[in-house]
């Protein structure tokens, strides 16, 4: 039971960072990005190639994932997403769904359908604390996620760009009036959002294999986390991530493995129905 709780928290911290990006994009741009999980997949591939050809540990390769996917996201926002920002939700939904299909199949063409995994020295190691066993890859991924979440908080709180992002999220018109370039800020927020998710993808590479369809496993999970925490709330997404991680590992004790995701879906629909503004207020 406590073991499951610990596992859940370790998993959930990473889910939190993965989903923070999605939440950031919605909070600033007001667009639900259905293609978001595909950027996770891209981040995983970047880290895989960095490991294979540069010998970089995925924990270090994650920095590369962050930078490369940030650039891709910046461009995608500038060329595509920007055009539907004022369009009705239907156009936004289908633009990002189209993007999802395009990215997934581009990856299929470029990388083939093989499952790829890395091997790192700490893959099967772990630490024992009394009765509780902590797997090293899970622990490292969690620590990396927490560090990045802290860096994100500092960036949003302290830097000029971070303040600009928050200002645009609150009131784009007022932000423009005080001299914020909203278009640039939108692109920055979108790039940052997908880069955070890509980073999360890279740090879980030691325990999850990557394939072009890996995004599909994370779509509903990410949305559940974000909806739990409140769409648009960055701190909420972190808390939501840990909740989802705990639910997942606790439900693994009760249900067979195939039905694990079912729990998530049911929670997801229930939260949407009862509290679409999220369980956690403010933030």
């Amino acid at each position: 039971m406590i073991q499951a709780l610990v596992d859940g928290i370790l998993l959930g911290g990473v889910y939190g960072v993965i989903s923070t990006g999605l939440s950031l994009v919605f909070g600033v741009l007001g667009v639900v990005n259905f293609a978001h999980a595909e950027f996770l997949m891209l981040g995983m591939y970047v880290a895989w190639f960095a490991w294979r050809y540069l010998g970089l540990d995925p924990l270090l390769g994650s920095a590369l994932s962050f930078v490369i996917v940030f650039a891709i996201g910046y461009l995608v926002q500038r060329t595509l997403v920007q055009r539907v920002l004022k369009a009705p939700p239907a156009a936004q939904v289908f633009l990002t769904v189209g993007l999802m299909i395009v990215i997934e199949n581009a990856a299929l063409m470029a990388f083939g359908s093989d499952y790829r995994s890395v091997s790192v020295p700490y893959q099967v190691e772990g630490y024992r604390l009394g009765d509780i066993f902590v797997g090293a890859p899970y622990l490292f991924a969690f620590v990396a996620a927490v560090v990045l979440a802290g860096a994100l908080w500092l960036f949003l709180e302290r830097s000029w760009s971070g303040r600009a992002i928050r200002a645009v999220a609150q009131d784009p018109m007022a932000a423009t009036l005080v001299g914020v370039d909203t278009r640039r800020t939108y692109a920055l927020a979108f790039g940052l959002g997908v880069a955070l998710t890509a980073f999360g993808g890279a740090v879980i590479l030691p325990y999850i294999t990557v394939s072009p369809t890996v995004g599909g496993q994370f779509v509903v999970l990410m949305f559940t986390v974000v909806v739990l925490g409140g769409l648009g709330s960055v701190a909420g997404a972190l808390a939501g991530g840990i909740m989802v991680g705990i639910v997942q590992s606790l439900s693994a004790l009760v249900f067979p493995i195939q039905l694990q995701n079912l729990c998530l879906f049911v929670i997801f629909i229930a939260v949407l129905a009862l509290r679409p503004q999220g369980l956690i207020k403010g933030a």
Partner: protein
Amino acid sequence: MRNLFSPSRAALLLFFLAAALLPLALDPRGHLIRVAAMVLLFAAMAQSWNIVGGLANQISLGHAAFFGLGAYTSTLLFLKLGVTPWIGMGVGAVVAGGAAALLSIPTFRLKGHYFALATLAFAEVMRVIANSLGDVTGGPVGLSIPFMGSQPALFAFRSVASYYWIILGLLVAVCAVFHLLASGAIGYRLRAVRENEAAAEVAGVDTFRVKLTASVISAALTAVCGTVFAQFTFFFDPDSIFSLSGISVRMAMIAIVGGLGTLGGPLVGALFLIPLEEVANAVLSSQAAGLSQFAFGVILIGAILIQPRGLMAYWLRTPWAKTRRAAATGA
């Protein structure tokens, strides 16, 4: 306001006339008639989706759930109990309608992105259940319908043309339902809900009931399409029948590319997209896996950016279509 021989009506009649005459020109067991049947079937699916997605502007990304429920209900009733799929089709429609009613309870307040997310999750739930209940649904392996030659009572035919006629009949029926809903009182209420839900409520529209009716009818029709699809293709599995991009998104995309909320939209959309995909598949699938799907996504993005109101917008802009019911087609 409604002219009996308006150009739009003439075009619609012409479409169905051409569709009815087409089998005479094609080899009844050939590949082309199969493609033509798929065009009509997807048009019928998109039209069913259009009732919720177009008239009420509730963007569903989970209609595959109802499609799959239709396919599974009729096929399981036939395989396990020997019930003819003709009856199974009706049962499937009732099951899907019931599921839609249940889903309406948690989702009827949701709009835009939230509604899309909830319906997407619902279809995923169906897919997970179908995959994990192996002893009932056959699990990930899927279900196949044994080939029995030509047995009209059991919805089995040797010639593709027979399926073609059935699908054409289905499409006519779905279009008729759509037209009745769109031009009847419920259509006005749905459009009122679409434009401004609070105002509609104040004006005395029971918004919950209107949306519920639309989604139940839409789901039931989608389930009928699912049964026909299962009989037509003889085989399906959970991942293909509950597929997000293969079914849910495609249904919506055909309606959107054609023209959201219009009667002709799904017909134009299917006529444009399905053959295009067929050609793309034939030409590109030998090149690289994923290329035709890639093209599908590019078309979707292009359609949204170039003409978000669909191909029908071009028709409505022509001088002979201008005179008529701009009001009836709404947005």
